[in-house]
């Protein structure tokens, strides 16, 4: 159960990151509310899952889903650069951030 909630936390985060794109395009009250909802839902689910999962693992998976998901959504739907050099750099940052959370 905690694992499912953790994955939902990651999906909420991707949704929140997507809404940053939307808010930048159109800063309407609805978009800003959805952006806040995304991150609030994400933090809520994350802290719930951390009650039964090891904190470093939960944090690492959450970071991984959110960052990779945010980058993929940006490339697929918001015309962000798909340059392989950019993808490798993001992957390096992501691998390092996940690694740091796992060993911390």
């Amino acid at each position, binding site marked *: 159960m905690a694992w499912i909630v953790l994955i939902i936390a990651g999906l909420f985060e991707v949704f929140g*990151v997507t809404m*940053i*794109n939307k*808010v*930048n395009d159109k800063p309407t009250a609805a978009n800003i509310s959805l952006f806040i909802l995304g*991150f609030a839902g994400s933090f809520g689910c994350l802290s719930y899952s951390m009650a039964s999962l090891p904190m470093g693992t939960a944090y690492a998976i959450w*970071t991984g889903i*959110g*960052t990779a998901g*945010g*980058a*993929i*959504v*940006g*490339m697929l739907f*918001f*015309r*962000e*650069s*798909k*340059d392989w*050099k*950019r993808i*490798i*750099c*993001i*992957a*390096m*940052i*992501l*691998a*390092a*951030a996940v*690694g*740091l*959370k796992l*060993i*911390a």
Partner: protein
Amino acid sequence: MTKQWLYVLLAGIIEVLWVIGLKHASNFWEWTGTVVCILLSFYLMMQASKHLPVGTVYALFVGIGSTGTVIADMLFFGEPFRLAKVVLITLLLAGVIGLKLVTGDNRKEESM
């Protein structure tokens, strides 16, 4: 352009403060400061993402936050210093510098 990168850097540094706050805040003023830091770091990240790709900004934000938190834990909260941490931080910095180099002045590709 460079201003946006400074915003992300600042957002990441402030993120470290609120992560510390979430862990250690114990009274009203510390919690208030933590909430102010959360709002400020997200605000700066939003400002930066107006001119940089959101995927890039978010990866930087998360990366700087993780690095800063690990460094702060080692410096101020007695966490052990480990070589693996330094290796990962180096990898992360290489990724950040690489991203800075490949991110052009145009915010998004014109063609898919």
